[in-house]
């Protein structure tokens, strides 16, 4: 007996499309107007970009296995956003510097996570949780209640605005597509990607087959930090303002996006396409619930229930009885 199976990223995208079409029937939905529908869909994908980029690092860390997870991502996003904000100060020529700072600071924090996890054998969950506290503490010290800075016009143009007046696709989406392609190259077409999946499946066999487990692990966490930093850079380019709690709301959704996208939380199996699909579904559900003007309590319950249903469909681990 062969069980009906469908790949998780496809399932997630199908779910997103069905939900989106159904949302058209809502009183304040798009109705029969195809242009409004396209505009709404584009907007949801645009919002999903930030969650998607932040979840990229999370995907890598989770694929690397050994209970891998990055709970410091939210704090790193905020820190990178604040650093970008104060570095740029509204000047276009400092944008590149701010991007480099965001990536470097993120990578450094990720590297410290990696050190603690590989050498001190601290479990990734608590190591990154502790680091999240430390980074939040740093943010409070740097921030001191208020920061002065400004986003450069070029950032807003490159991230929040459409490509050209004729093509109404926001640049953020184009950045995301390129980013997704690069992630695919990294995961599926590079030695690093092969090693990553190898250590995710089984560290001992990976080591015996000549994979440098320690170096790969350190690299994964550093890369995850840098990607969270990049997420913070993009995010501040879109919002234009920073505040202490900017990144934290993205933390658990980033893990949920990875899980919804079919990446096993135990490691060794997964894809970035799945995470992209997961990010779109989660963003869609959240924004639908907001449009429906549900009270906060109902919104949270529906989100929790949807997440449960989605992971029940394909997030199941192998049964003991095989």
């Amino acid at each position, binding site marked *: 007996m062969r069980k009906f199976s469908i790949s998780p990223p496809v399932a997630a995208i199908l779910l997103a499309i069905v939900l989106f079409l159904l949302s058209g029937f809502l009183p304040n939905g798009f109705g029969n107007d195809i242009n409004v529908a396209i505009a709404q869909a584009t907007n949801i994908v645009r919002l999903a970009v930030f969650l998607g980029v932040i979840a990229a690092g999370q995907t890598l860390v989770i694929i690397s296995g050994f209970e891998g997870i990055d709970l410091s991502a939210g704090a790193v996003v905020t820190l990178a956003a604040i650093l970008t904000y104060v570095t740029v100060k509204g000047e276009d020529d400092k944008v590149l510097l701010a991007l480099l700072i965001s990536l470097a600071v993120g990578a450094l924090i990720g590297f410290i996570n990696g050190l603690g996890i590989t050498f001190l054998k601290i*479990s990734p969950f608590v190591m990154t949780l502790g680091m999240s506290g430390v980074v939040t503490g740093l943010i409070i010290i740097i921030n001191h209640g208020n920061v002065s800075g400004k986003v450069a016009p070029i950032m807003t143009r490159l991230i929040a605005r459409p490509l050209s007046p004729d093509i109404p696709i926001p640049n953020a989406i184009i950045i995301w597509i390129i980013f997704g392609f690069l992630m695919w190259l990294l995961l599926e077409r590079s030695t690093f990607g092969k090693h990553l999946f190898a250590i995710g499946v089984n560290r001992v066999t990976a080591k015996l087959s000549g994979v440098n487990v320690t170096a790969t692990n350190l690299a994964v966490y550093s890369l995850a930090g840098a990607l969270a930093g990049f997420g913070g850079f993009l995010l501040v380019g879109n919002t234009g303002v920073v505040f202490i709690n900017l990144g934290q709301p993205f933390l658990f959704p980033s893990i949920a996006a990875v899980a919804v996208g079919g990446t096993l939380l135990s490691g060794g199996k997964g894809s970035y396409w799945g995470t992209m699909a997961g990010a779109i579904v989660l963003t869609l559900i959240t924004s639908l619930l907001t449009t429906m003007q549900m009270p906060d309590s109902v919104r949270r319950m529906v989100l929790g229930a949807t997440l449960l249903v989605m992971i029940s469909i394909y997030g199941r681990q192998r049964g003991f009885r095989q």
Partner: protein
Amino acid sequence: MKRFSWDEMMNRYPAFFAIILLVVALIINFILQPNMFARDTLNSNMRVFLPMILLAAGQAIVILGGGIDISVGGIVSIVNTILATQVGLNGSPEKMWTFVLVSLGAGILAGAINGFFIAFLRLQPIITTYATSFLYVGFALFILPNPGGGIPAEIANVYRNTTPLGLPLAFYVIAVVLLIWMYIRSTRFGNYLYAVGGNAEAAYETAVPVTWVLFSTYVVSGFMAALAGIAITMLSGSGNAEIGVPMTLTSITAVVIGGTALSGGIGGVAGPVVGAITLGIIQNIISFSRIDTWWETFVKASIIVVALAAPGVINLLRRKKV
């Protein structure tokens, strides 16, 4: 006489390091607050620590079984809102008893929902309990959308000021929890718990009822979270649907500081109880040391990271020497 062996102590008593940490924290706290062992101070400290102690004990059972429960904070919130809305500021002690029982039932039910999805449907614990945490906090917000309500002051004072034989009530509760744990550990269920946490597949092969053991850990955790919710409601005397949210990650930190490994099967409940007290004392130290408010989060998180890293550093140094 046998020479004192660090390795042996660390291996045989996972709580060993937690106790060292507790003693150090106690000494520092004592220097900063010389009257801390006075009856009133001790009681006022212990009644604040007790909710987290109960929560950490429940979390420890789940983690021993190889899972994790991110929904405990949500269960605390549900219990708090049930008591605050149903008993009310003018409620009678009988009413309080009734709803204490209802709360315990709610906690068990919430734990059973987690257990059903994780043990029977074989979903991944971290993402499942993350999803149910939305359900539970959402439900708490549904019961009590805005902070308010409460329980009568006389009933709250029973929790706050009962000191049988001059010792805080919390001491007796901790003693009962530890005695029950020692009994459970000696039973067949105790062995099953360690077997499932250590290697679920192997436990299944040797006819351990893995599914039921896993299910029961979440029920226990739900029950303990309900107890923690009752304790924190009697401590604060008022209702707030968000009260439990920040407690979840702290309870996991307490378990790990207490020497119980997140990978499951190693540790116990005594360590996490000590860990929860230690975290409370660290908070005490920070508020008594009069450090700059801006630095508080950073200092606290750094102390926790150092505490988490210390056993690893010691092992690393010892391995280098040999």
